[in-house]
């Protein structure tokens, strides 16, 4: 009798689950939605908090030294953590020339001379020296805020790119970058910035240039699509995508592709004379 009841229970539970599953799926308005519970609960205000947490990540990167709205005349998006990400390629060039402008500000107070004794005393109790979390593994401290910012505003592309940059530069966490970028891509399928970063992940971390090239080509196609739709895509990022494609073609010694990408880069209006020189040299070589 017990076995019979148990069997009946299992069969009933299975039948109920098959009956409920399609109904629950139909109740979900958008099965591919990427909004978190926190984002849904907070509504539009979540975007304000997302920006606040992005600023918090930037403040953490500078070890707590960060100007308030009263100390700064502009109230723009944080540039430092992104600056590091964008300066990725420029950094090598700077080192060749023996300079690193960002490093020039290290170990300096960002607040300047105090106006009075109260301010002078107050500066003794807040971090005022401009330092970075640049020792190995230290940058992990900014990640909770970037993750929270992405939860609150999945459409904020900066968050995914910055988090990925720091993740892939930490050997222990490099593999975490891909799922996070994919999460960003699901929320922003047309983002050429995320695709550019994903390409860098495949090229630099996974050492898979073929896959990287495919991703960058997709990024360039998305960029062009936005240009055609008059959405004013960022020209600097467009140039960076092409730059990566040129470098990748150079590593394969593919002069034809290099010329093709350099022509596109020239069309963007960056240093036309120098680019033409490179194109001519490549044409000469391939003859």
């Amino acid at each position, binding site marked *: 009798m017990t076995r019979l009841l148990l069997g009946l229970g299992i069969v009933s539970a299975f039948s109920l689950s098959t009956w409920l599953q399609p109904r629950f799926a139909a109740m979900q308005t958008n099965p591919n939605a990427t909004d978190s519970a926190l984002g849904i609960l907070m509504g539009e205000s979540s975007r304000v908090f997302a920006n606040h947490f992005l600023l918090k990540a930037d403040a953490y990167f500078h070890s707590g030294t960060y100007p308030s709205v009263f100390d700064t005349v502009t109230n723009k998006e944080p540039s430092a953590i992104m600056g590091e990400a964008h300066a990725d390629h420029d950094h090598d060039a700077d080192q060749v020339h023996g300079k690193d402008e960002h490093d020039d500000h290290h170990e300096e107070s960002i607040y300047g001379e105090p106006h009075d004794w109260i301010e002078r*005393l107050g500066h003794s109790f807040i971090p005022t020296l401009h330092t970075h979390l640049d020792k190995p593994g230290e940058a992990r*401290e900014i*990640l909770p805020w970037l993750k929270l910012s992405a939860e609150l505003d999945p459409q904020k592309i900066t968050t995914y790119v910055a988090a990925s940059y720091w*993740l892939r530069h930490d050997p222990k*966490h490099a593999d975490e970058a891909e799922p996070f970028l994919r999460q960003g891509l699901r929320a922003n399928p047309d983002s050429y910035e995320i695709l550019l970063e994903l390409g860098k992940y495949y090229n630099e971390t996974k050492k898979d240039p073929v896959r990287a090239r495919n991703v960058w080509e997709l990024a360039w196609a998305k960029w062009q699509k936005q240009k055609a739709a008059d959405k004013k895509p960022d020209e600097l990022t467009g140039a960076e995508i092409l730059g990566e494609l040129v470098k990748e073609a150079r590593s394969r010694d593919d002069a034809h592709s290099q010329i093709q990408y350099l022509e596109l880069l020239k069309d963007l209006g960056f240093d036309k004379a120098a680019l033409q020189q490179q194109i001519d040299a490549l044409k000469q070589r391939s003859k």
Partner: protein
Amino acid sequence: MNNIFAIASVVLKEMYRRKDFYVLFVLTALITLVMGSVNIFNDDKVVRYLKEICLLLIWVSSLVIAITTAARQIPAERESRTIFPLLAKPISRNQMILGKFVGCWIACALVLVVFYLFFGVISGAREHFWPVVPYMQALFFHWIFLGIVIALVLWGSLVFTAVSSNATICFIIVAGIMLLGGHLNQIAGRMNGISATITSAIYYIIPHLEFYDLRDWIIHDRGVVAWGPWLIASVYGLVYSAIFLGLACIAFRRKALTL
């Protein structure tokens, strides 16, 4: 002096009979532990966000305890009419105010010791190092801050009629000073005329409570705070506590206690 400590001991006993501290401590511990269990890219060494959340909860909890405890001291004595036998004994009004202040301040010290011990254990368990001296400096600064707040609230309880209005106004004043107090000179610098003068005067008159907020210092492991400025700020805080206590004593002496 004995009279002051006798009143202070009554405040302390009342404090541990009430449930405010236990509830706030359990909430702080619970939220911190839940936040600590969040998976951040599979890295269990990320600690600064946890320190930030824990310290924020400690600051909010201690402020709530200090303001609500101090705000009800004198009004409760008046409502229950125990103030009359108290003052009929050889206790002056000044001693009563001082006794209430000392009681609240010591109660806050005990609360802070428990909170900071919890904070030290949580951060130490992740970081694997215990910067004891900076933590002690932060705890002492926090205590000085609460001393100013308690003195201000005691004065407020003699100026405002209801406990709720006093507590609300004090919360707003403290939050306002913490957020804007240190920037009033910059705001005044961008203004013209009489408004600039008034803003500037407020800047120099108010107690700069933001000095005592060492959270960023502790979160970002900036080491030991220079002892010179630390000592000056401590004396500065004690002077403001004394000023507010003096004002409370004057207000209490002038106050008619008839119901």
